[in-house]
């Protein structure tokens, strides 16, 4: 292995191989230290050792919620009587303006596979599934090719009882492509979908670690989280914690990104806790000529808008939460002065309304209502009552009110837009009652009076 990559891996464990332009095959992965962690774990470490390394590393789930991965694993029943257990990789990356897992899967599939093997070993899973967003055709092809290579090399089961690398522990891994529902990113909806059922979230408790896929203990981890596992086992928890270079109390690097009218949109692996300003201004090169930053979403459509004055905050889970938003996936969406906030929020809520699974009332019926009001405001036929009602919705669809976190997530951009840009909403209130009723628009579409309905 070249010393340059070795050094780079110690700083950017997730993307060093990718930026070096290596092919994604097994040979080049192994030539750069790939599957060393697996071999070490199987030979030298007990499952409990692996678990405690990950726990000590303070790796927090990279799917957006930031739940400590080691703690999640620790809830899985262990021991010889625990029976079938499953490890599921949540690769259903459908959060608007999020595209980090795609990079990892397309260009470093073996790192995910190794991460799943080590994680599977740690919880003594019997089988693993990569629940992949269906539109990620290239990722599916590359993952499947990599899985075939790994199977051929004896790194994956079934091994007819000998176990992976002769360890006695067997593990199979397959790619399952989703049918295109955002809610499948919710881990229990994902499990239902994996089982072939409707993608409705499940009630918790029981948590998946106790009763998940097919009623068996199941761990669901994000792609980026799992890609961190092999390096943690390889280089140790202390190394991982140090990767943040003191910028955050969390450990590791983070795949950050930027989109919108920035100069160099993309993905950047940086120490977790890097400021948003550094991400936007240095790595993304700042706003394009003629555009100024109006506000930004820190990590996906289901996070609250932040303002330019928040740019110096460290992008980690706790700091962004204190500012009233969530880091989420850490991929920043920059909005500029040309964006109308009502239109932007309407666009987001249309997405959320469409992607509601339809299980619980506030989400199913509340989100489409918000879209209709936002549309009215956007088209200048809103009413003052709409703004009151939108504000009510942010409470009624808030955390704890709905069955899962989908609607509360949908309310985050809405409530922050109302907080920071209320005047833009007020500007959409119709000047005359006729306009409010949308008489012209309705006459044009032939729809009957909506007011009476």
């Amino acid at each position: 292995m070249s010393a340059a990559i070795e050094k780079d891996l110690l700083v950017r464990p997730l993307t060093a191989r990718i930026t070096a332009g290596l092919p994604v095959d097994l040979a080049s992965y192994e030539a750069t230290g790939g599957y060393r962690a697996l071999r070490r774990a199987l030979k030298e470490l007990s499952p409990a050792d692996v678990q405690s390394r990950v726990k000590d590393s303070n790796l927090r789930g990279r799917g957006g919620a930031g739940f400590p991965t080691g703690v999640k694993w620790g809830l899985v029943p262990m021991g010889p009587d625990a029976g079938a257990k499953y490890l599921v990789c949540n690769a259903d990356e459908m959060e608007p303006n999020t595209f980090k897992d795609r990079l990892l899967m397309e260009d470093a599939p073996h790192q995910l596979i190794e991460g799943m093997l080590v994680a599977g070993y740690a919880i003594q899973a019997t089988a693993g599934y990569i629940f992949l967003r269906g539109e990620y055709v290239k990722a599916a092809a590359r993952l499947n090719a990599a899985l075939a290579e790994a199977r051929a090399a004896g790194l994956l089961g079934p091994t007819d009882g000998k176990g992976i690398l002769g360890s006695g522990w067997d593990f199979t891994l397959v790619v399952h492509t989703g049918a295109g529902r955002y809610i499948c990113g919710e881990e229990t909806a994902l499990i239902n979908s994996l089982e072939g059922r409707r993608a409705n979230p499940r009630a918790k408790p029981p948590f998946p670690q106790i009763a998940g896929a097919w009623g068996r203990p199941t761990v669901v981890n994000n792609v980026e989280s799992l890609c961190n596992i092999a390096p943690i086992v390889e280089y140790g928890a202390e190394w991982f914690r140090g990767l943040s270079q003191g910028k955050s109390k969390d450990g590791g690097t983070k795949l950050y990104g930027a989109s919108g009218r920035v100069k160099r949109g993309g993905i950047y692996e940086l120490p977790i806790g890097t400021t948003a300003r550094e991400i936007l201004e240095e790595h993304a090169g700042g706003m394009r000529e003629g555009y100024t930053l109006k506000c930004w979403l820190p990590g996906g459509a289901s996070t609250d808008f932040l303002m330019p004055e928040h740019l110096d905050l460290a992008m980690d889970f706790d700091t962004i939460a204190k500012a009233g938003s969530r880091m989420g996936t850490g991929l920043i969406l920059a909005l500029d002065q040309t964006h109308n906030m009502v239109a932007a929020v309407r666009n987001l809520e249309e997405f959320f309304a469409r992607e509601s699974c339809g299980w619980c009332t506030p989400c199913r019926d509340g989100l489409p209502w918000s879209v209709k009001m936002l549309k009215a405001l956007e088209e200048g036929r809103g009413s003052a009552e709409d703004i009151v009602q939108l504000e009510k919705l942010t409470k009624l669809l808030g955390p704890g009110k709905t069955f899962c976190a989908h609607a509360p997530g949908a309310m985050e951009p809405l409530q922050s837009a109302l907080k920071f840009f209320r005047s833009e909403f007020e500007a959409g209130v119709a000047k005359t009652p006729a306009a409010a009723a949308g008489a012209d628009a309705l006459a044009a579409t032939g729809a009957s009076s909506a007011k009476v309905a």
Partner: protein
Amino acid sequence: MATIHVDGKQYEVNGAENLLEACLNLGLDIPYFCWHPALGSVGACRQCAVKAFRDENDKQGRIVMSCMTPASNGTFISIDDEEAKQFREAIVEFLMTNHPHDCPVCEEGGHCHLQDMTVMTGHHSRSYRFDKRTHLNQDLGPFIGHEMNRCISCYRCVRYYKDYAGGTDLGVYGAAANVYFGRPEDGTLESEFSGNLTEVCPTGVFTDKTHSERYNRKWDMQYAPSICESCAVGCNLSPGERYGEIRRVENRYHGELNGYFLCDRGRFGYGYTNRKDRPRQPLVAGEVVTRETAIAAATAALKGKKVLGIGSPRASLEANYALRGLVGAEAFHDGHALGDAALVQLALAIVRDGPVRASTISEIEGADAVLVLGEDPTATAPRFALAIRQAARGKGKALAAEKKLAEWQTIALADLLQRDSYPVFIASVDTTRLDDIARATHRAAPEDLARLGYAIAHAIDASAPAVSGLDAATAELAQTIATALASAKRPLVVSGTGAGSPAVLQAAANVAWALKAKNDATGLALSLPEANSFGTALLGGASLEAALTQIESGAVDTLVVLENDLYRRAPQARVEAALARLKHLIVIDHQATPTAARAQVVLPAATVFEGDGTLVNYEGRAQRFFQVFDPTYYDNKIGLTESWRWLADLEARSAWKILDDVTAACAQALPALAGIVAAAPGAAFRIDGLKVAREPHRYSGRTAMRANQSVHEPRQPQDPDTALSFSMEGYNGTGSLDRPPELTPYAWSPGWNSPSAWNKFQQEIGGSLRGGDPGKQLFAAGAGKPYFGEVPAAFAPRGDAYRVLALHLHFGGDELSSRAEPIVKRASPAFVAISRADAVKSGVNGHATLAIDGAQLRLPTYISDTLPAGTIGLPAGFAGVPFFVHGALATVSGG
């Protein structure tokens, strides 16, 4: 036990329930939609939100769903909290963004859980000003209407139909604000329990189509506590009447029997009462006559003559007893079909005298291993079948308990259960409608089913008789079933008279008794041919065979047939020959049967909806049914009365003035029936000095009811027989704890107009009714009995003489319900089933010609891959299928 605090008050609760159940049990109202006592909690509708506090010092609190939160010790909640109230109101407002405001034209109106909950939350005006989503509706067959625009997406329908009832053709499609509950395409719902959708649906998506055609609001109908006559389970019904017609039958909650659910035959089969061709006036020689003339003609035919009486297992005890009184105990015959009387007597001996008494439906639901021997319960005792499904699913509760999860956590239960279940073994002559939940199925002729049963019993207890000559596969199956039953905590044996085989009943008894010796929690449930099979068996009449033999000998002058059609009980040629030997035939019935057509005197009788009486179900539970309406009020030419009244008049028994007199006389005469008086309160019963009102207090139009005949309003009909009034005047509340559960005509409680009102009548939600579940158990605990020992020889095909097996179907075989038009539409046409090999051998192709007992008939063929070779199956009781005795042989030819 647990102490919870609700709005500052302290309550004791059992600690196992969720907060919604606990509060409803305490009489505290919380609105809800998706939760249902039988379907559990899923947290979908978010309607039952309350504020939960960490402790008494927490003033902030947070909104929780009461159905998803355990009522554990030290819980502090508020229902009245302002935020919680506003949230609940907002939920209804959300639902109303799409729910149409069509209450005035919606059949659910006035009977609608959504209306009740809307009022309960206080939501009255909405801010939503946009379009509503619309759906296309489907034709779901003759029973259920479909109006999807009204749907509030509570998911109850699919949770009931698929998860609870095992249906496969109703699903949920789409997502977001466009979820659709229906079939993949238009077509009749396949489940035999589809009608419960009309009660499970909290609004007007699924409505009773049989009611639609002659619609009335709930408050405009008259009701009585009734009992279903379509099988021997004895489900409790709440039939509603207007203008002299039964317009709808709904479930009447019974904690141990039907619970919240009925079968479709029981719910939609009431139409025989409304038939225009019924005898409603007395007939002598085919001419309408007055009551006096008819009685005179009948009396003349009886006086000084040699008289026989044939009773009926579909008639009340009182009617049968009155006939027994008229003709004398020796001349009284029980009216079961040839061969059935002995089977029923055997079943009675097993259930009443044996060591294992009959299980209630709720006990069946609690079983953890089930053997069904010789029966297709979906047809012969449908409510058994629905309960067996719950038994199989019950393993989810055990798995949940292992994970310390409450049993109301429905989603978790299903997730844990996956495709696992408690074992159900089905041994029957052909496929059954429960095969989808069976761990193993076995198809064989009745003798071989009995042999399997005997072998199972022997494997459980070696002192039970062994079976010799069993093939290896059957012996292994017997061992597997024996092991499963013996290792269960609550094993259950289900059998009955459906196979037409005493050996099957005996084998089933042996299995249950062998289990009982090891496990006191063993259950047994035997299905019977008719609603009052045990009642008539307890009266102890001789068999129909004996009656026919006497008549055939020419020793009988006059035959009195009570509510019975002999052509359904014996081969046609034999009935015709016997009737031809009589001088006089008197038929008392409510249907225009072929037997009635032969009678000189026809006395029109009341159906179960038009009279009162007592039935004894498969458990030995005596239950009273009450007259729903007085048909003579609408048309004074109508001359029908209860059969017992006709018989009392024929005998000039002046002592029998009211039903209670006959019931008491019957109880006194027959010690086995002594308990029937206590089956329900008598006519003198009053609550706060009042009779119980049959009509809701909003009943309208009463004074105009007969205005087309005369503007003078007649006096309301009086009811001397019962403690119920034909009026809205009378006791109408749920408030009195003294209200006997037997006297609840319909579900209503202030603020609760839908069937959800039953929650207000229960001791605890989903448990027994206040005052105990209706009916009086007549059987005391039985004693140990020696095993039955007559192991039959194996069935051997007899060349061209095919053994005729009775195939029981849910629709079309039951006498009364198959006279109802919607049931006729739903039933399949008659057919003959034949095994594939025999079909080839006998050359049948599409149709077959059969000869049975000298009768010839041609039927379409159904090629079965499961029917035993050497047998053919005929749908029992079907129109176009003549009566055949158990064990009959037939020849089969093609074309």
